[in-house]
């Protein structure tokens, strides 16, 4: 048998200790089996809570926190490592099997040079001498396409970019010449334009070294580029397990089909209209104490009842634009007008009517709601504040809003902690709707959500727009969401507008180099996409 890892009927349980209650066992993985041959890549995919990281880590018999493997077998090269004891596991980890974590920035020790950390495992296991390990590290840096491979090892983690750090971690995993690497969402925290380079580097390294890998992600389009087999997981159970081709092109289960088709919302572009709801003219802004402008001469308009999407990678100034429009960061120069009247640059100078008609929804719904208030209080406050509703009348209106966001009854007295991620975001939408606004600023509202949940939120936003004639300023780095929802698009790059116009116009050639990079970097749900892009694109990511 050439299986590196053969996992049979895995069962994993965790002990949870809710405050004030007795601790209890919950099953987080049940009856999962998979095999990996040498040189092959298995993709584990599922939404958060599906148990994908837990299953991946089980390949080295590791459980985080109070997680325990309570059933099944984990055979590594034919030996059941669950029976081997700690010393055997110590031999295995960092030598036969290595690990690449999601957040490279949090996984590196900031006080040590990169080289020390990359060679640490190889030296600790006595696999090679220091000189050998360093030579190997340099050759890996070269292989992974890192700049200055000879000297980058002497830098500290904060001195390289996020994309580079993720590749350094891949080099760290490859250094002891392992037979299997576990990649736990290695590109999730990266910008879309950086992700593609890291992805390509990882794929090349896997091919060149012939190492086997487990690739964990929530993005099916990403995993399709890199793996040979895919296992779709949900609630700790296997939904579907097969070759990449079979899963992507011929999914059998409904859940898999939904995942494959998740990016298929179509939204016909509305007719351009000269009737603007919000106009921002020549906005220039900088943060207090900073020595450069985060926004430079940006002018955008949002038409009544339509959606303007603002796209760009992190640091492009798109969220700052939202802060300027809301008045949280008063613009240094430029003018704002809303619904035909001038809007004060400063929050303090705006009327209650201005505030009411311009609402905002945040990226992290968790922190956008006061954890000590119930859903009823959260949604009811704008009703009381702007319209003076009280008692029964307010309660009825809150219930109407809950119906509108498709949540029904029974949520009124719950606390945010008792809601799922998608429900939290829906409550935030309801809170914005409660003010009966004309424009809602959506700041990355779908990027913290699982694809299927995000899909639901986008559909809800479209439905509300059709029913209530809302205008959206939709800020995102996810171009798939943009195609799904926008009428016009503004591409931002380094604080300036790079490209701006109706959706059809912005998304059709000829492209400038940056827009081309951004558009081509969005993973597509087809095999071989990665190779095509790397060959044809015009410029490399700044984070590279």
């Amino acid at each position: 048998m050439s299986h590196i890892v053969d996992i049979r009927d895995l069962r994993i349980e965790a002990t949870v200790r809710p405050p004030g209650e007795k601790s209890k066992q919950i099953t987080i993985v049940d009856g999962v089996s998979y095999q990996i041959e040498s040189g092959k890549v298995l993709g584990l995919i599922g939404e958060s809570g599906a148990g994908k990281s837990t299953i991946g880590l089980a390949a080295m018999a590791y459980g985080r926190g109070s997680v325990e493997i309570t059933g099944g077998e984990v055979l590594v090269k034919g030996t059941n490592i669950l029976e081997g004891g700690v010393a055997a596991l110590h031999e295995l980890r960092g030598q036969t099997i290595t690990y690449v974590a999601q957040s490279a920035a949090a996984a590196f020790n900031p006080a040590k040079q990169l080289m020390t950390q990359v060679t640490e495992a190889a030296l600790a296991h006595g696999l090679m001498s220091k000189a050998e390990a360093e030579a190997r590290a340099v050759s890996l840096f070269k292989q992974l396409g890192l700049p200055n491979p000879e000297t980058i090892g002497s830098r500290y983690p904060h001195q390289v970019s996020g994309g580079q750090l993720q590749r350094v971690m891949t080099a760290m995993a490859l250094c002891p010449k392992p037979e299997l690497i576990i990649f736990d969402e290695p590109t999730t925290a990266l910008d879309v334009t950086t992700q593609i380079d890291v992805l390509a580097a990882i794929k090349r390294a896997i091919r060149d070294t012939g190492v086997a890998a487990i690739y964990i992600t929530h993005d099916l389009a990403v995993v399709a580029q890199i793996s040979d087999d895919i296992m779709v997981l949900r609630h700790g159970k296997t939904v579907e397990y097969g070759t990449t081709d079979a899963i992507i092109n011929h999914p059998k289960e409904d859940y898999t089909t939904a995942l494959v088709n998740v990016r298929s919302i179509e939204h016909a572009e509305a007719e351009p209209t000269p009737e603007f709801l919000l106009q921002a003219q020549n906005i220039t802004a900088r943060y207090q104490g900073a020595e450069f402008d985060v926004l430079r001469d940006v002018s955008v308009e949002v038409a009544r009842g339509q959606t303007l999407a603002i796209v760009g990678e992190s640091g492009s100034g798109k969220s700052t634009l939202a802060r300027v429009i809301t008045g949280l960061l008063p613009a240094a120069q430029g003018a704002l007008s809303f619904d035909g009247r001038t809007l004060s640059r400063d929050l303090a100078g705006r009327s209650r009517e201005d505030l009411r008609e311009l609402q905002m929804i945040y990226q992290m719904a968790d922190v956008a709601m006061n954890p000590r208030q119930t859903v009823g209080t959260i949604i009811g406050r704008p009703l009381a504040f702007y319209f003076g509703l009280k008692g029964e009348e307010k309660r009825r209106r809150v219930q109407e809003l809950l119906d509108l966001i498709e949540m029904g009854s029974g949520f009124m007295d719950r606390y945010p902690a008792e809601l799922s991620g998608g429900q939290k975001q829906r409550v935030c939408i309801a809170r914005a709707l409660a003010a009966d606004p004309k424009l809602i600023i959506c700041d990355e509202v779908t990027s913290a959500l699982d694809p299927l949940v995000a899909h639901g939120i986008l559909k809800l936003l479209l439905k509300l727009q059709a029913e209530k004639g809302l205008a959206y300023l939709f800020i995102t780095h996810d171009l798939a969401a943009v195609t799904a929802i926008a009428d016009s698009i503004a591409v931002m790059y380094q604080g300036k507008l790079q490209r701006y116009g109706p959706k059809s116009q912005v998304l059709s050639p000829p492209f400038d180099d940056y827009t081309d990079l951004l558009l081509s970097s969005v993973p597509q749900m087809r095999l071989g996409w990665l190779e095509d892009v790397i060959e044809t694109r015009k410029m490399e990511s700044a984070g590279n």
Partner: protein
Amino acid sequence: MIRIPLAAVIGLFLTSTYFLVAIFAPYIAPYGMAEIVGDVWEPMSIEHWLGTDNIGRDLLTRMIYGARTTIAVATFATLVSFVIGSVLGFTAAVFGGWVDQALSRFVDLIMSIPSLIFALVVLSVMPVTLPVLILVMGLLDSTRVYRLSRAVAVDIYVMDYVEAAKLRGEGRGWIIFRELLPNALSPLVAEMGLRFIFMVLTISTLSFLGLGVQPPNAEWGLIVKENKDGIVYGIGAALWPALSIATLAISVNLVADWVLTRTTSLKGGRE
């Protein structure tokens, strides 16, 4: 039915016992507070459960009246320090800018002087009455509460839900009392248990040094002072107040811990 952990039950029982004793002291105490009922330092007996003190007063009676003074002073001083400290701390966090600078630097100034020395200086020029004691201790201790509540509030103030409230146009009152305060309660309650005990220690120390509660009133620190000479002769009268302070400290903190776990539970503090 709420299930209370054993540690909290013990804490609640002891704490409430101490407080009840303090409140109903005149009804519980077997003798008058300053009544001389026997010989000097009599041993424990049926008439005098803890024996008598250095001038022949019943020690149990002294302890009970001592609890009244000590706990009352500590409680009110804690309240003073929390009200002043947290209101100023939240104000500094919400207003920021020069308000924050002025308050924080002033607090730094006060904190740079050892608070016991500071209290001694103030009390030596002022008439030592209970309200003055409470005020002096409360004000000095409010600097610590200020520091904590400002730090907690600054953390909460940058949360998106506070920003959402600002965008809604909410006034500062709403932001302080509805958005900040409920989320800052957990660390403040935990701190309150600790500060209460420091108050007990401070008032005892002051009385021991002669600048706190004045005889013939009873106070635990004062009882230690009055009976400290007995220790040389193997008479343990001075140890009873020490034991009381220790048990009170532990039980109050058991209660504070329990409140803390309850308020940090997922359901927003209500079950």
